[in-house]
């Protein structure tokens, strides 16, 4: 089965720095990867989608990359703020409209 692996350790960074989260996948490259944000006690909220043939995608302070050679996607938040503290989930889009999620990485931004 296709797997998505995210760093299970929380990432602690200082306000103003760039946070970088990693998502690794197994076997074949998915056509699309998605990134979601989840706050405690709430459902995930969609942030960005990147296609297999896109190297990079940006949205405001967010940037996602997709490296099919490394089988990896990186998610960057520049000029991070305490309000960015949350769990970030990576998901691969599978045939039949299904998503396979990673377990998520907790980001803590300290002021």
């Amino acid at each position, binding site marked *: *089965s296709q797997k*998505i692996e995210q760093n*299970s350790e929380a990432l602690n960074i200082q306000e103003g720095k760039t946070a970088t989260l990693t998502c690794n996948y197994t076997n074949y490259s998915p*056509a*699309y990867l*998605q990134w979601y944000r989840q706050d405690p*006690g*709430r*459902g*995930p*909220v*969609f942030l960005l*989608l990147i*296609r297999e043939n896109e190297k990079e995608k940006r949205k405001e302070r967010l940037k996602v990359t997709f490296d099919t050679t490394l089988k990896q996607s990186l998610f960057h938040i520049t000029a991070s703020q305490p309000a960015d503290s949350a769990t970030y*989930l990576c998901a691969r*889009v599978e*045939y*039949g*409209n*299904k*998503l*396979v*999620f*990673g*377990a*998520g990485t907790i980001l803590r931004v300290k002021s």
Partner: protein
Amino acid sequence: DVKVTQSSRYLVKRTGEKVFLECVQDMDHENMFWYRQDPGLGLRLIYFSYDVKMKEKGDIPEGYSVSREKKERFSLILESASTNQTSMYLCASMGERSYNEQFFGPGTRLTVL
């Protein structure tokens, strides 16, 4: 503003009880999903539906069933709740294209005693 609502935020049931979790979306989406989320395991797909009265098993369907009688409503049923079904349950909906974002409800935290 798009919305996915779930019938309860918190639910406590006893072992052996029949449990219904309801999900309603107002976006006229064809696709609806039920996940459970457990620490360290992420979201795991239980069942999904791509149309009224249609359903497909996800990765962990055992012990669950679903019902989709109307487009906007997707129900998850635990026929006989067990303690290992204690979890956070999340419903989501998605439009027609397969790479579309999924819109999630707030979740139901179910505890089975």
